[in-house]
């Protein structure tokens, strides 16, 4: 068993699983806050794309990876703020705003990329994060390569799982978020500002989705390409359903998706008679299957998707 697990192919597979899980896990972790507070964050995909693009540009210009990561997170927070402006302050339909924001960012990143880098043939690149090996721990079979032979953002992401967990279940902020998402009128009566809580949740959601996006360009690839999230923000929404909006659940669900994604990447190189497109479809079909199995069972926060107006009776 140990020899199987220390096989380089298996180790590479486990590493890849985590690498592919990380962006959707980060976006989904932020999505927990947004949805628990009662706001559907359809804009996760665009938020990731913004983080991915801004992170890449800043690192390209400064040569500093961490500056890029921070800029990507801030870009994500900015998108979160725009969403909050509409979904919280104006009380617009959250789905319409989210979809419009996603389309806007696809166009904006594509336009700005051409503005900054021109339309030359050479693909601009940055040197992506090198794996940071925690030597003693990375030799542990199975969880060694999965957890401890990874780029620094992965450790950051893993640390965020218990942090979000504790924040949601053990702090007054977490309880306020839950109150706002379940019964905003009652929360408001108790002196909790529904709008402020939702605004903060969307900002944090933006920060985390931006981090997930920056991971794509700065850690997983070192390049930016048009629409590079390829629907990962929507997959993150399905991860939220599968993980029941719980940080641990989201973590496990994201790893499952990462493992499936890594499997399709490996599968494309195997000659087993299936066209490569069948493998490319796999994560999307898996997402649909997950929804078939779990969407009906999930219990949504009672106020999910419903705009709140303080001075207006329901």
């Amino acid at each position, binding site marked *: 068993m140990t020899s199987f697990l220390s096989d380089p192919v298996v180790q590479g597979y486990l590493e890849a699983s985590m690498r592919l899980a990380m962006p959707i896990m980060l976006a989904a972790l932020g999505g927990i806050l947004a949805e628990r507070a009662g706001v*559907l964050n*359809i804009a996760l995909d665009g938020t990731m794309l913004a983080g991915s693009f801004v992170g890449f540009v800043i690192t390209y210009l400064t040569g500093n990876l961490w500056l890029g990561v921070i800029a990507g997170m801030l870009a994500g927070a900015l998108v979160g703020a725009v969403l909050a*402006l*509409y979904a919280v*302050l*104006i*009380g*617009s*339909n*959250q*789905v*319409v*705003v989210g*979809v*419009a*924001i996603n*389309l*806007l960012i*696809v*166009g*904006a990143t*594509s*336009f700005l990329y*051409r*503005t900054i880098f021109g*339309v030359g043939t050479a693909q601009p690149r940055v040197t992506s994060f090198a794996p940071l090996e925690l030597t003693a721990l990375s030799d542990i079979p199975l969880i060694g390569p999965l957890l401890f032979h990874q780029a620094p953002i992965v450790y950051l992401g893993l640390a965020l799982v218990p942090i979000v967990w504790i924040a949601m279940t053990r702090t007054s902020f977490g309880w306020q978020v839950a109150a706002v998402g379940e019964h905003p009128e009652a929360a408001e009566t108790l002196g909790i500002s529904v709008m402020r809580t939702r605004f903060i949740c969307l900002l944090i959601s933006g920060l985390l989705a931006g981090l997930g996006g920056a991971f794509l360009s700065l850690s997983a690839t070192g390049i930016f390409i048009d629409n590079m999230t*390829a*629907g990962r923000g*929507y*997959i993150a*929404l*399905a991860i939220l359903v599968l993980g029941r909006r719980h940080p641990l659940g989201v973590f496990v669900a994201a790893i499952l998706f990462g493992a499936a994604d890594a499997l399709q990447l490996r599968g494309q190189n195997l000659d087993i008679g299936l*066209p490569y*497109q*069948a493998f*490319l*479809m796999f994560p*999307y*079909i898996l*997402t*649909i299957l997950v*929804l*078939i*199995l779990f*969407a*009906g069972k999930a219990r*949504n926060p009672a106020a*999910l*998707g*419903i*705009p709140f107006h303080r001075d207006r009776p329901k």
Partner: protein
Amino acid sequence: MTVLDTTTKNTAAAYSAFRPLLQGILPSTAAFLLALAAGAILIVFWGGNPVTAYAALADGAFGSWNSIAETLLRSIPLTFTGLAVAIAFRGGAFNVGAEGQLYIGGTAAAVVALWLPALPSYLLLPLMIAAAMGAGALWAGLAGMLKLRFGASELITTIMLTYVAIYLVSYLLRGPLQEAAGYLPQTDRLPSGARFASLITSTRLHMGFLVTLATVALTQFLLWRTVWGYRLRVTGINARAAMAAGMAVGGLSMSAFLTSGALAGLAGVMEVVGVQHRMIENLSPGFGYTGIIVALLGQTSPFGVLIAALLFAGLQVGATTMEAAAGVPATLTVIIQALVVLFLIGRPAIGQIARALRRS
């Protein structure tokens, strides 16, 4: 009760949010002009002159008979995807996957033409159109079934099915359906019977434009002058009320998905029989996504959709000229299109800010 999940409630809420907008075209026009102004700022940032750029854009869109014909040609798929999203929206569903249904529809039409090449045009074209509508309806109906049966949000499933559709089509065009020469991911040129006659000589505008106008009139009629349209709209506004009134909400919701998919499939067949004359891998530069914005700008009314589609068609066609003449990347149009919606739905903010100012 699965119909009454959050997205249904949402789209119903969205509809009522859009109701005030239905009065007059002023807000849509204002939003469009604001978005153009924002685009001008981006052109300056890019390092260009917005006046020359927009002049090139207008010239490319409406400057000659040929450019007008190109704009009308481009409005065909945008009208169909816009109608697709609008009909779904009216029935309480958010179809963000018209892009995938378009691809499936276009492919189905091409398969029919390759299978029955000897058929005369008057038989082949209707068959291709029927195949495209059927295939598009099937693809959207899958999402509808997943929503009604399993409570899976169509927001996610239609997007996921779009990726599946595009990879499926890619496989077919690189495998069983690939041209005999075997170079490009496309089918062989379709038989001459599988073509629309041109509408204005020496331009690419084809008879499909008349089909488009007829479909707009037909959907307008169906929505506002038939029992089905009435029930569909009631379901979209308030599914609970519709249910209480004894309407078969599930069936109505499903019919919204099917009609929506059929319309998106029509967008695909129009591109195949009218423009490409074969099925190709990059049939659509995002018509399905632009259709969402067309539907919203057109305030989910078929005539509004037509006007919005013409506007965006001009924008897209003109942008190509703008890129060639002034160098400004044509992707600017994607930004302008999305900003139109954000400005449109941001309208209540003006009132809120005014109220806040008065209070302080």
